[in-house]
């Protein structure tokens, strides 16, 4: 009400001699009248609009990323793959508590003696939402389509790259033959689509299949939710599928509403327009903490924040390119750089404490694969004195101004590229510049647009550069990008984020991929991380926490992943929305309805008064000359 009352006109002045010049009050009143009219225009008779039915059994999520496509064969963006995970089942899923592979469409699975034959036994009660049963035939068709059709391989081609054949031995058994053993077979997150719906689409679209966006609602799938509506840039609606084999969701609907500005989305959570916001900054999360009816969820990070050092960019054929600092090919220098940086300081200053200082490459939420250097392994702990001593010994002599010069005569002036759109990057960059100055390295800080950063990386025109990856429950991919095979075939086409190539690493990588025993594989994965740590090309700084918030008067409980300490948005599987229990209906209704209605009536009344008052004034003034 503060704005309205500030604009309330003072009562018309008592009769008497009026100055010929219009007094300031008059003009101010005109402004008030216009403002009031504007308010009135939008405001009248809207009392019921506030008391919508969004409270009870609907969960509303604020999203910002636009939909690329609902075609599960081609959809790339996080928001769409997240949605499709609720619409289409996959063979296996990820246990909500432990992050280990768990049954979904496949109840059981086993690998043959040679490790090349995988058999999946499907459940017999999975049904598509058009009442057709889901059989082995649908699974085989989905996989072979991805294997045979390039356009259909855009999203999941990498999952089937090692497949020899996929066949059905009966209605509920699928056999996959592999070229080579691959341990990632238990993380096949490929959505299984109904063949009877998609075969005609594929034939009809032909070469244009990649452009097919599958906006035919409701979508036929077998998942716990049905996608029923997409109004681009406004909202997306998912309805519960009560016939799902795991049991229908408790919620009736999940609505994703578009907010292009995260700060505005946070305000929408406060007002109760949305039930859930994710990817908050630490400032936003802090401001929401302690607010009535809002729970802030601080989850263990899935992502690592790192910087890589350019060890000398080269192609697979060994052709060098780019303009990285030549001294960085020296491992001792790279190690000294790592030792000069205190990850705890990065957590404090760049993440305001909302992160965990990093050890190895895989975040701690994946208990068995996570590795952290301890005891004798911890050779690169924060120790600027030791770093200085190492550099002295290796022949990096300080110049008159304190900047060291390599034995080859190159001054240690390095460039650092940081993402301008990530506040934690910007802060971390400042810390790194300072710490490297402590060991005689001068750093030029380039805080740039993501596109500029990406170009610098792929052209090899950088020295130190920020990066970060979200690590999946199966960590194979984030390790694959540091094999020699990930080096670019020609400049600009690199797979990963560092020009790293190491024989020992590649051998370990192959070994973990072929190891089907989870504990034994985890051992090899630890060794891989140790190699990365020692080589000091890929240097992990921190695992930022995932910050989310939801309204407890909309949702009573949710399954986090992992449990405890896990996240809600972006789970592997559909646990959060499937398990979400709506809050009691009366509680939800009480928060918004009546008070808004009263306020509307009051606001409308005040606006009306303003308009009437303004009209009276204008008339009085216009005829003032006559009355004089």
């Amino acid at each position, binding site marked *: 009400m503060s704005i309205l009352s500030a604009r309330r006109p003072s009562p018309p002045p008592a009769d008497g001699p009026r100055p*010929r*010049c219009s*007094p300031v009050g008059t*003009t*101010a009143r005109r*402004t008030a009248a*216009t*403002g009031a009219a*504007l308010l009135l*225009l*939008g*405001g009248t008779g*809207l009392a019921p*609009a*506030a008391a*919508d*039915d969004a409270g009870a059994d609907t969960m509303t999520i604020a999203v910002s990323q*636009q*939909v*690329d*496509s609902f075609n599960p064969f*081609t959809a*790339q963006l*996080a928001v769409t793959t997240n949605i499709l995970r609720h619409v289409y089942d996959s063979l296996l899923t990820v246990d909500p508590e432990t992050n280990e592979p768990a049954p979904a469409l496949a109840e059981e699975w086993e690998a043959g003696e040679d490790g090349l034959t995988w058999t999946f036994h499907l459940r017999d009660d999975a049904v598509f939402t058009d009442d057709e049963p889901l059989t082995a035939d649908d699974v085989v068709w989905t996989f072979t389509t991805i294997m045979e059709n*390039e*356009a259909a*391989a*855009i999203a999941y*081609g*990498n999952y089937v790259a090692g497949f020899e054949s996929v066949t059905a031995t009966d209605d509920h058994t699928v056999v996959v033959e592999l070229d080579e053993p691959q341990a990632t077979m238990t993380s096949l997150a490929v959505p299984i689509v109904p063949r009877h719906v998609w075969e005609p689409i594929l034939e009809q679209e032909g070469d244009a299949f990649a*452009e097919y966006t599958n906006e035919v609602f409701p979508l036929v799938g077998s998942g716990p939710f049905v996608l029923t509506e997409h*109004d*681009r*840039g*406004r*909202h997306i609606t998912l309805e519960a599928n009560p016939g799902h084999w795991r049991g229908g969701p408790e919620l009736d609907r999940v609505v994703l*509403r578009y*907010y*292009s*500005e995260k*700060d*505005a*989305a946070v*305000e*929408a959570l406060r*007002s*109760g*327009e949305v039930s859930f916001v994710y990817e908050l900054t630490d400032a936003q999360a802090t401001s929401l903490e302690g607010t009535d009816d809002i729970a802030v969820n601080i989850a263990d990070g899935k992502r690592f924040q790192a910087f890589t050092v350019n060890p000398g960019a080269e192609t697979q054929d060994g052709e060098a390119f780019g303009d990285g600092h030549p001294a960085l090919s020296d491992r001792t220098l790279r190690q000294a750089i790592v030792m000069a940086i205190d990850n705890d300081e990065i957590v404090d200053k760049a993440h305001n404490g909302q992160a965990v200082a990093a050890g190895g490459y895989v975040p701690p939420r994946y208990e068995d694969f996570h590795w952290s250097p301890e005891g004798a392994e911890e050779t690169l702990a924060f120790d600027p004195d030791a770093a200085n001593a190492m550099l002295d010994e290796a022949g990096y002599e300080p110049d008159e101004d304190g900047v060291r010069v390599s034995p080859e005569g190159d001054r240690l002036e390095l460039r650092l590229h940081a993402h301008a759109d990530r506040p934690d990057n910007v802060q971390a960059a400042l810390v790194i510049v300072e710490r490297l100055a402590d060991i005689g390295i001068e750093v030029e800080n380039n805080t740039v*647009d*993501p*596109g*500029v950063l*990406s170009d610098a990386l792929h052209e090899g025109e950088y020295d130190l550069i920020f990066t970060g*990856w979200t690590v*999946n429950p199966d960590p194979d991919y984030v390790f694959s990008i540091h094999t020699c095979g990930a080096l670019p*075939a020609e400049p600009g086409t690199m*797979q990963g984020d560092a020009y790293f190539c190491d024989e020992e690493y590649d051998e370990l990588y192959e070994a973990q991929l072929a190891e089907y025993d989870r504990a034994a594989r985890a051992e090899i994965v630890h060794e891989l991380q140790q190699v990365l740590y020692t080589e000091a090309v890929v240097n992990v700084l921190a695992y930022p926490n995932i910050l989310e918030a939801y309204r407890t008067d909309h949702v009573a409980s949710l399954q986090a992943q992992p449990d405890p300490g896990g996240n809600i948005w972006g789970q592997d599987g559909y646990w959060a929305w499937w398990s979400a229990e709506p809050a009691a209906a009366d509680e939800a209704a009480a928060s*918004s309805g009546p008070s808004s209605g009263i*306020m509307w009536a009051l606001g409308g009344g005040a606006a009306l008064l303003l308009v009437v008052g303004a009209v009276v004034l204008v008339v009085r003034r216009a005829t003032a*000359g006559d009355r004089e």
Partner: protein
Amino acid sequence: MTGAPTTSDRPAGAGAPAAPAAAGAAGSGRLARALVYVAGRLATAAVSLAAVVAAGFFLFRILPGDPVRAMTEGREVSAEQREELRRQFGLDRSLGEQFLDYASGLLRLDLGTSFQYREPVAELILDRLGPTLLLAGTGTVVAAALGLFLGARAGWRPGGRGDRVNTAVALFFWSVPTFWLGLLLIVVLASGRGFVPDLFPTGGMVDPDATGPGEIALSTARHMVLPVTTMVAVIYAQYLMIMRSSLMDEKGADYLTTARAKGLRDSLVRRRHAVPNALLPTVTLVFLNLGQVVSGVILVETVFSWPGLGQLFYSGLRVPDLGLVQGLFVVFAASVILMNLLADLVYPLLDPRVRP
């Protein structure tokens, strides 16, 4: 929304004096001159548009970043999958080929395909055009009405208290960052913080639950209040300043003395005599702004999550979604060119002094 308050590029007094109509021959000569004038304007507009198309295409190719890398960022994809995307987007072909393809598509009114939405750009733009016109149109009309109304009063008594206050307030809002003002309005009037109830929605255009035309119209109106207020607050100053200075020019004119001598009330002298003449320079400004209406509300649309062209452009620039941004660029530029053309054609009708 853009630039400082501009003065008209066509000063009212500087036009060629109207030729005295003489005979029938002069009449046909006049028609010919008018046709040449119109043809000249059309040709200029066409050349500008062609230049914009070419500049837009090559400018956006200079944007740093690779659309395929940006779209697959953080995703587990192989080099083959990236290559396939590059092929689909036509990025594997030479720049010249891509441009020819694009230009020939434009002639068929085909603006190409958006990378991230996998939809024809023209369809995306048409889908968003309505909301933008609604928001920006309402905002422009309200801002112009408010600015002209207050400007006329301010200019009538320049230096008076009303003038000083009005001008100061308008210039204050003019210099306020749009983004900040929008967020402030959301925090105060939409979030339900403290004792202030959540009077208005925080974003969007219409409640997803609204059904039936009446309910949708009401919901839309309610969603429009804050964005329109933000937009008006920031831009009305330019109308106010133009109207003010224009009216000050008219103030000393002899015909006003005549009008007063007739015994007309002061407000009537202003309304019936001074304002109509002072309005002319503002017409150009209104037209220029109409052209920018579709492109000028990017920030307002972003703060209030308004599903319009501005929001679309913002999402396109982040990738960069070349097909989408160059399509929007052409549409934005074309609307400015079109409105300038209209202003050129309409102005002589309003002001006899600049008739060719």
